[in-house]
């Protein structure tokens, strides 16, 4: 036997040693780089900036069918104190339109989204319009709805969240949800602006889909599925504690009444609403929608009273906003 030949004992010892070192270092590397639950709240979560004497400000701008939509958006924001209450120079702003699918009158008017993006850029923010559609390919739906082109025309960036990596964040005050997956774009933004359309949501319980429900689009599809298994209304409220829009602009130029979120009747309303309180705007939106339906003779006996909508009240209980009409100051303006 030559001297450089390894003995059986030495060979086994070497292999064993290498295996132990590889196992331990692999474990350490995994521990260092494994995706961790992020316990810090997203940067944009802040108290409502649009308040007056402790009450949430809410503007309702009514125009006519000839009124320029952009003017109505500017007027609505001006009525509650302007976009610069939340957007200042260098802030990363995410505008979240509610683009469920490719059907007409489902998404907000592209002009509304583009005008909000333009105003945020004018105030000095870097604006990203981001969405993760729940009913189709996001990029396709955004293009069909005309939002991609309208937003790019004013110089903002469009991001299709379904193509992004996912992170998991804690929901410290959640009742049902204790953690939720979201996207770095949403987690890292300084200002979150929600731009939904005023719509009836008829399934399964007659409810509304405005700003609170719009936040279902900042989580991946797998999470939307999980919410349906866990009790949807409470999950919507829980998500809004960590993905809390600083400003909501509701497009009610045409509201979707009777049914929804995509098969209702579009009814001309020529209204734009804005508020920093997503619960207040959902409550008042639900009220206006019911009034509109009653005006147009749509039977509303099946619908719960607007003060009795589960996810709005659940979100109010969690402190997302106020569902007490006495704590909401409504500023109405008529343009004609």
């Amino acid at each position: 036997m030559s001297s450089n030949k390894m003995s059986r004992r030495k060979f086994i010892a070497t292999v064993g040693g290498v295996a132990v070192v590889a196992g331990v270092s692999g474990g350490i590397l995994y521990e260092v780089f494994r995706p961790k639950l992020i316990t810090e709240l997203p940067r944009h979560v802040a108290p409502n900036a649009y308040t007056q004497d402790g009450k949430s400000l809410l503007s309702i701008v009514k125009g006519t069918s000839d009124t320029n939509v952009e003017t109505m958006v500017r007027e609505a924001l001006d009525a509650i104190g302007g976009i610069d209450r939340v957007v200042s120079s260098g802030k990363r702003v995410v505008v979240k339109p509610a683009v469920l699918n490719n059907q007409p009158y489902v998404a907000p008017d592209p002009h509304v989204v583009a005008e909000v993006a333009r105003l945020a850029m004018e105030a000095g923010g870097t604006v990203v319009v981001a969405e993760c559609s729940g009913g189709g390919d996001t990029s396709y739906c955004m293009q069909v709805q005309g939002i991609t082109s309208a937003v790019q025309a004013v110089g903002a960036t469009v991001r299709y969240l379904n193509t992004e990596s996912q992170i998991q964040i804690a929901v410290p005050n959640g009742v049902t949800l204790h953690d939720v997956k979201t996207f770095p774009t949403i987690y890292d933004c300084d200002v979150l602006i929600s731009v939904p359309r005023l719509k009836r949501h008829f399934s399964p319980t007659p409810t509304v889909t405005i700003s609170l429900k719009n936040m279902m689009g900042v989580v991946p599809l797998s999470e939307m599925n999980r919410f349906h298994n866990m009790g949807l209304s409470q999950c919507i409220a829980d998500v809004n504690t960590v993905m809390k829009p600083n400003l909501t602009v509701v497009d009610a130029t045409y509201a979707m009444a009777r049914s929804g979120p995509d098969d209702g009747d579009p009814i001309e309303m020529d209204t734009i609403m804005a508020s920093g309180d997503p619960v207040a705007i959902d409550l008042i939106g639900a009220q206006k929608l019911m009034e509109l339906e009653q005006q147009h003779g749509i039977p509303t006996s099946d619908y719960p009273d607007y003060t009795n909508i589960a996810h709005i009240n659940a979100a109010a209980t969690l402190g997302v906003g106020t569902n007490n009409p006495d704590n909401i100051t409504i500023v109405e303006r008529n343009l004609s």
Partner: protein
Amino acid sequence: MTECLNSLHITRREFLKLIAEGAAALGLFKIISLIPSPAQTNLVRPPGAVVEESFNALCVRCGICLEACPTKAIVLAGYEEGLEAANTPKIDAYSGPCEFYSGRCSREMKCSKYCPTSALRLVNKGQVKMGTVELDQSKCLAFMGQECVVCKEKCPVPTAITSINRRPVFHGEQCVGCGTCVYYCPASPKALTLKATGVRRVSA
């Protein structure tokens, strides 16, 4: 002849045995293919597919339709679907929703557009019924008391799914079989299955 066979080191007996075995195997294959496979008739085909009787003969198994499909709803049928149908395209609604009725393929079905033979044809979407979706109430979240009628929300046909008493009701005759509701069903396991019943396809 004998020299030739000798050079191959094969005896006449072995040679004849090989020929007989080959013939027997071919015969067996033919017999197997004649047995009507029950699975074969249950295949949900891409929207522009011709009738099932002509489909396997016209399809060249090139897989271009799989590449063309924007939602990856088309997958290859396996050998368990029968020898004749193996490697032909089928719709797997768990893999993706077919957008022929509403979406990226509503104007022009991409799979049909790129099909090099006439197994998949560019037809009007109104002529097509790929299959019918069936609901298993024991797996449905709405029947377990959850707030869910996602299937109704995602369905591109206005009247194919309605909701009564907060539960979905399927109207099979209106269903076009696109599988969108199946894909988006949040229940696990899924409460919906897409079956090739009541299909309407173009004849060859």
